[in-house]
């Protein structure tokens, strides 16, 4: 839009910018607010006076607080992390990771940065500040009440890390299988103009319209008694599907298939068919063409679709709460359980801290992949 003719008048620009600012506030406020709440003592967190929630006088009186210096250094660390995530990391991956293994580069890179951030922010920084604060006089005095004890309760005492691990298992499974199965189907559907292909798409759409609660309630008795009805086929080792992450993964993949194949189909349609036809003229069959020609160019669409699968697996409540038991429960039902049984206000703030904890990985994920999402969508992952 560099052309002069399309330049906009100042008034319009200002209106647009101020509405955008307003939207950003609306979008971020609830998340910002529960984050603030999670760092306060129960009395402050549920206070009806907004200033009490923000400044946490009660929390400060109990000896937990941060000074201006703390805030400045904290912001600096966050800013540097964001900078590394969005600027340095992509560059490093581009130069160091070999072409085919970009994803591995990303996984390792993100992990290193995330761990580095956690260590710096929660271990190194407090240690440094303990030493520095007394030196800086008023700048080093606590002005805002803030406590991380609820996070300690969640992660250390309540064993939330186990739920985190379970969530990771389920989510990773859902994303990998969903994309493997979905990519093949999406490609097949995109390249076949037959009525059958279209019928499959329409039926998939109908499937997507089915209320999930009905499906899921139907699974429960079948999953619980599976070792009985599977015994004739699998003998004594027949598994009880209830409480098994792989069974939940299969269910979530299936539920998500309609959306996945629709998205990937329209993405593959935007890749010119001449590409793989040329490969087939060179003697490749469909699968070889798919592997050699399509796979290298399909990543933008696959990453975008993958992100939606990730959100589904990570955020699911209905399936995971019903089909998993306490030992392999994921984070969302664990938190819902906390809210439904917690009877004290302290416990509620702990649950809020858990809620913020589960949002944090999503934060990182979007920070890293945001450009890929947009480019994937632009490249045609959505064509209707």
């Amino acid at each position, binding site marked *: 839009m560099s052309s002069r003719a399309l330049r906009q008048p100042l008034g319009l620009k200002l209106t647009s*910018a101020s509405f955008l600012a307003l939207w950003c506030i609306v979008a971020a406020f609830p998340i910002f607010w529960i984050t603030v709440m999670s760092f306060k003592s129960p009395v402050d967190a549920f206070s009806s006076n907004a200033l009490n929630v923000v400044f946490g006088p009660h929390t400060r009186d109990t000896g937990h607080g941060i000074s201006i210096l703390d805030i400045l250094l904290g912001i600096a660390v966050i800013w540097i992390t964001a900078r590394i995530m969005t600027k340095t990391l992509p560059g490093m991956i581009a130069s160091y990771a070999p072409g085919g293994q970009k994803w591995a580069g990303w996984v390792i890179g993100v992990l290193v940065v995330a761990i580095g951030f956690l260590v710096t922010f929660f271990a190194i920084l407090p240690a440094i500040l303990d030493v520095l604060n007394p030196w800086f006089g008023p700048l080093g005095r606590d002005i805002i009440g803030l406590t991380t004890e609820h996070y300690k309760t969640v992660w250390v005492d309540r064993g939330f890390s186990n739920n985190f691990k379970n969530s990771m298992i389920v989510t990773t499974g859902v994303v990998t299988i969903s994309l493997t*199965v979905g990519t093949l189907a999406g490609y097949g559907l995109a390249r076949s103009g037959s009525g059958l292909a279209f019928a499959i798409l329409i039926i998939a759409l109908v499937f997507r*319209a*089915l*209320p999930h609660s009905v499906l899921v309630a139907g699974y429960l008795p079948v999953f619980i008694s599976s070792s009985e009805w599977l015994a004739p086929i699998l003998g004594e080792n027949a598994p009880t599907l209830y409480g098994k992450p792989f069974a939940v993964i299969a269910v979530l993949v299936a539920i998500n298939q309609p959306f996945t194949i629709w998205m990937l189909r329209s993405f593959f349609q935007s890749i010119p068919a001449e590409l793989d036809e040329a490969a087939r003229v060179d003697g490749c069959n469909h*699968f070889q063409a798919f592997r050699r020609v399509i796979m290298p160019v399909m990543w933008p669409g696959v990453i975008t679709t993958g992100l939606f699968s990730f959100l589904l697996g990570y955020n699911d409540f209905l399936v995971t709460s019903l089909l998993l038991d306490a030992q392999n429960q994921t984070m969302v039902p664990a*938190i819902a359980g906390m809210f439904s049984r917690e009877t004290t206000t302290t416990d509620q703030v702990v649950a809020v801290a858990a*809620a913020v904890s589960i949002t944090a990985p999503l934060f990182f994920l979007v920070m890293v992949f945001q450009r890929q999402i*947009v480019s994937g969508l632009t490249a045609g992952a*959505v064509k209707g």
Partner: protein
Amino acid sequence: MNFKTFAAFVGPSVFMMLLFIAFPLASVLKQSFYVTQPIYDTVEVETCSPGFPDQICVTEQKSVPQLDEDGKIVEITTFVGLQSYRNVLELERAWNAVKTDGLMALQSIDFWKALRFTLTFTLITLPLVLGFGLGIALMINNASLAIKGPVIFISLLPFIITPVIGALSINWLFRGDGILTALIEWYLQRDVSMFAQAWTIEVLIMLYRVWHVAPFAAIVFYAGLQTVNSDALESAVIDGASRWQRMKYVVIPHLTPLIIFISMIHLMDAYRVFEEIVGFSSQGYVISLQWLTYDFLVPDQAGNRSISRASASAMLTMIGIAALLVPLLRRTWQDHKGDH
């Protein structure tokens, strides 16, 4: 592509959908025409439970299901035709209510109450989601390059946040003297209770859904805006088209497939509105069709569940969605025929 190759590509996906969706769907359809129930015997039972200081024993007539030799409950399944649908729809009662008290009387019957809200919810949020989505997309597109990244990031937050958590945080912000209710009270200078009447809850539920879904629409539209043909725009400018006309004749037609895509997804999801009802615990005032299905389905504390009515209600929900989708599907069908 021959059929064999096609089947190999599509097979795994179709198999999973058949196993986990089509098969349960078929059984739901069947269950909606049948009723399965145990055979009860009435027996006199003495039950003793704790009291102060001594036990309380009560002798009552109780209905106890018959067990077979394996110790399983004997169940009989009978074909009841459309009876479960009739039980859900309560047509006769609805008709009488309408005849005597007018249309509003339908509100006293669960299914119609739920249908009323579900339809209102779906049809009001749809234009809002499309409008806000497009608006945000245009604003992001207008923003300078330096802030685009952060703005997209913030815009995506409501979409990625776990729905359960999102609904709960709205709950904290508005319930009782929640921070935003306090703000409204301060602005209006009077006491406000957001959860004490139906319309405020309905507004909250709709706003929450728009907040949650508009970012998805926005990001899709934004992606679409990147591919608008700038030559077409420039020639429109040369022809003297106003900003609004350019929007109407160049940008919107370009985005039409995306608008249809978003509408389809949104109609399906909004018609199944459920989490908000539970999250806002609004069932005293407002219920939705999927909530009704869910309510039939969850066992009460004594283990009874209304599977047949739940199945019937689920099928009715699907029919509703299908009816809403027909116009959009017809277009997709025409596109498909046009393509090939």
